[in-house]
């Protein structure tokens, strides 16, 4: 046995068993070493046993970062809890690292805290390369100095006892270690591994199970802790996936047949998924020459009766804006998915922001009423696409779905939907058109009208982006133009009338009401719970419809001393005075309700941890409570 194994934590006869309500685990490696697979499997086992789970990918900044580099951490963060989990939380409780350099990229973003348990691959201590040995020794001393509970683990040596090439399979050995630590059910792991690798043959499954068992056993003998995160088993069938997969499945479930796109991070994986699987339900992915062509193709398909979807991110949304306006003007249904990233311009391509809200609402020249919706959970990513297609068709207008880079890669279990016929788009109607009905026979109350589809005899008409009358004839008369704009705008009022006022999370009156939208919901609600735990009357509200805004806001706001938004976009602090730039939702709510809505927002490029939101809320309380360790000017990134 080498030095490293001797310095492993003492073998306790009786491990320290801790009951915890939740824990955050990270597995990090150089990219390509399988940490992501291990992390996902750990999350799935936990979810299956009945824990709440939220999994996020840790993605290196570069495609092929140098080996053993600080910038190279690739892996997963898994937050498990007895109850449902809605966000990625703060610093990790347990980290497993494949080398001593990758933890630094996590340390740099505040992912570890004093007391974090760090299982560290110790093979580097015996590296033939002196520089590596030195780097390892230095890092080890530094980790201890920082207060981490370091456990050196001879992962490589242990794997060698089971397989010839530990490079493939170390991740499964680690999965075994973690499953022992958290007393996970090995039978479930066996089932998952069979499902994942069964097709590659029995031998592969067996060698992976051998690795798993070895890791499990090693931890049983050597790890001085056990963590019990009580589970709440349920009989409900569930699925687990990330937000982009949920969007892709939603597209399939909605009966959409055409996804027309141009690659852009972090939206592209929606179409990757569809490219591989869409044919199962008869759909196609069209990769266009640019975003303009992508939406043009989608609009063409929609015009011909097959409501299509185009998937993009901020820069692509900008390019599509002329066509979005066209679809609004010509009243062509369309679903546009914007998986937001940091902006403006190329911005932060892989990172989260909620900066496209106003662009989605007002990004087109002229008065361009469109529906804008935002899912707040992975489950909603799935269901909202189905709703979006229906709304697009009923209201004959584009629907923009705003997701973001955080929902895109986060995984969360939710009840398994069952495919329903009413979700699917009906086949194209080619029955004759009623001769006397104009292509824009607007109902004066609702603005709604029915559209003829090519193939319908007697319905021949020419769509145009020019001002037009009910017959779709180009018309520049003032009255006709006024009428067209009114009818198109009226559709949103009609939709608004059918919406229910949003539900307040917590009491419907109190000190502060926090308003948010999209992916921040989970963290906001967790933060609100914590602030209430300190005895303050704080509630929150999440908007799913941004255009039209959900009704009744003014009345809800009236019952709180203060209303503020929490967002991931830029805003000035209140001291900025008259010229203050408000966060985008705050801007919208102020304009719409005339309530003096305050805001706190920032653009760290990462999901906001609940602790930070808690601090932002408490600071706005009458006695401006501070949380000393949280610097609101400098928000820590934990992913």
């Amino acid at each position, binding site marked *: 046995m080498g030095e490293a194994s001797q310095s492993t934590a003492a073998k306790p006869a009786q491990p320290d068993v801790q009951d915890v309500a939740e824990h955050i685990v990270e597995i990090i490696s150089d990219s390509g070493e399988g940490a992501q697979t291990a992390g996902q499997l750990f999350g799935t086992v936990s979810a299956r046993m009945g824990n709440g789970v939220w999994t996020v990918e840790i993605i290196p900044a570069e495609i092929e970062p140098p080996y053993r580099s600080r910038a190279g951490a690739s892996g997963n963060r898994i937050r498990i809890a007895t109850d449902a989990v809605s966000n990625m939380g703060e610093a990790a409780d347990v980290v497993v690292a494949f080398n001593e350099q990758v933890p630094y990229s996590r340390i740099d973003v505040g992912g570890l805290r004093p007391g974090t348990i760090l299982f560290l691959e110790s093979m580097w201590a015996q590296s033939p390369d002196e520089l590596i040995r030195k780097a390892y020794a230095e890092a080890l001393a530094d980790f201890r100095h920082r207060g981490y509970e370091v456990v050196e683990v001879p992962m490589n040596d242990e794997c060698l006892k089971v397989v010839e090439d530990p490079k493939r399979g170390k991740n499964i050995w680690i999965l075994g270690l973690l499953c022992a630590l958290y007393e996970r059910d090995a039978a479930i792991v066996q089932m998952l591994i069979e499902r994942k690798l069964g097709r590659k043959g029995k031998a592969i499954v067996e060698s992976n199970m051998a690795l798993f068992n070895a890791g499990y056993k090693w931890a049983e003998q050597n790890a001085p802790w056990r963590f019990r995160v009580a589970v709440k088993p349920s009989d409900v*069938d569930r699925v687990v996936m990330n937000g982009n997969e949920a969007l892709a499945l939603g597209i399939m479930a909605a*009966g959409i047949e055409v996804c027309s796109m141009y690659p852009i991070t972090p939206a592209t994986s929606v179409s990757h998924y569809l490219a591989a699987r869409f044919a199962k339900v008869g759909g196609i992915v069209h990769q266009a020459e640019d975003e303009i062509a992508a939406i043009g193709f989608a609009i*063409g398909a*929609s015009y011909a009766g097959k409501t299509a979807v185009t998937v993009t991110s901020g820069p692509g949304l900008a390019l599509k804006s002329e066509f979005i306006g066209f679809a609004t003007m010509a009243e062509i249904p369309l679903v546009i998915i914007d998986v937001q990233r940091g902006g403006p311009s190329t911005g932060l391509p892989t990172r989260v922001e909620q900066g496209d809200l106003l662009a989605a609402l007002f990004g087109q020249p002229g008065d361009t009423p469109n529906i804008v919706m935002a899912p707040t959970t992975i489950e909603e990513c799935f269901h909202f696409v189905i709703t979006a297609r229906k709304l697009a068709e009923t209201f004959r207008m584009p629907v923009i779905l705003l997701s973001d880079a955080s929902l895109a890669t986060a995984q969360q279990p939710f009840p398994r939907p069952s495919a329903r016929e009413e979700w*699917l788009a009906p086949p194209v109607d080619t029955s004759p058109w009623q001769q006397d009905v104009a292509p824009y026979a607007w109902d004066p109350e609702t603005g709604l009208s029915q559209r003829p589809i090519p193939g319908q005899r007697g319905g*021949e008409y020419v769509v145009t982006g020019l001002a037009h009358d009910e017959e779709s004839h180009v018309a520049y008369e003032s009255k006709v133009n006024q009428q067209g704009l009114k009818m198109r705008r009226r559709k949103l009022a009609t939709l608004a009338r059918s919406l229910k006022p949003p539900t307040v999370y917590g009491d419907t009156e109190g000190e502060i009401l926090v308003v948010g939208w999209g992916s921040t919901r989970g963290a906001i609600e967790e933060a609100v719970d914590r602030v209430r735990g300190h005895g303050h009357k704080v509630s929150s509200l999440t908007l799913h419809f941004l255009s039209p805004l959900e009704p009744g806001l003014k009345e809800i706001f009236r019952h709180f001393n203060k209303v503020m938004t929490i967002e991931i976009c830029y805003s000035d602090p209140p001291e900025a005075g008259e010229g203050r730039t408000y966060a985008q939702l705050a801007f919208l709510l102020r304009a719409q309700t005339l309530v003096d809505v305050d805001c706190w927002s920032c653009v760290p490029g990462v999901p906001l941890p609940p602790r930070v939101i808690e601090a932002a809320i408490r600071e706005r309380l009458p006695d401006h409570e501070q949380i000393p360790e949280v610097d609101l000017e400098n928000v820590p990134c934990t992913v």
Partner: protein
Amino acid sequence: MYGLKQDWEAEEEARCLVLEDFESLTPRWCPGCGDHAVLGSLQRLARDLQLPPEKVVIVSGIGCSSRFPHYMKTYGFHGLHGRPLPIASGVLSRRPDLHVFVVTGDGDCCAIGTAHWIHAIRHNMNLTVLLFDNNIYGLTMMQSSPTTPLGNVSNTHPGGVPIGPINPLEVTLGIGNASFVAQTLDWNPLHLYATIKSAHEHQGLAFVRILQRCPHFMRDRWNDLQQDTAGVAVLEHADGIPVDDAVRRLFPNIRQHDPADLGGGRHLATGEEGIPMGLLYRNPESPRYNEITARGLGKTVADKLAGLEAELDRFAL
């Protein structure tokens, strides 16, 4: 609706379509504008082929010529400047039952829509594309276009266009997977009609450049060709566009050109042998993207539900 086996299944009864069945609003083009002739040709073709008006979609961009759909009593899509090709591709993608025509101008196609032009040729979907090339921006009042001749005075180049034009035929013939490239003149109705007919019959993207008169802004542009018809090289071949006797009588410079000969077509496109009129290139073997986009159209509701269930199972906990 749910009872339909296919999206566009509907019973057809016998009907006899006449020219008026394809005529809509009165065209608002200038007198003498070449666009009138193209409109007349397409209306006659639709009548002669008895194309059901509800199955015809004319997609255009923005420009004088792009007003075209408003004058046809068929389905029409008067789109955005430069973008008719992506729109038309989308229209056809899941509706192989439709006859889709594209009307585009030299600014629309060869300036703002250049990327789409190149990729539409490459995709080779079953579209009939008519490029109305008047060498000028008509609608916006006489700005230079990418095909405006060197030195031609325009509102954006009062001292004359300083850079020579691009040749749409050469460009198109340079794009891999091109499958039908022809040129015709708006002032020869017989050849115009025959060209549009061949283009429509072609399976794949048929690209037709129509030299178009704009008496309003380019009054003298084609005078030379009209006066000295020997400047036109009429291309003839059994696989090409039929040359009517009346055309033969008018144009002395008739050349045999096998449209399968890409090199020969490229040479003719340069204009060194005269302004070509006829089919420069045809390759019926070029793969057609519309055959790929139409995949999966036959799926029933039951297929789709089963497919979705199987997908959901892949994510089961």
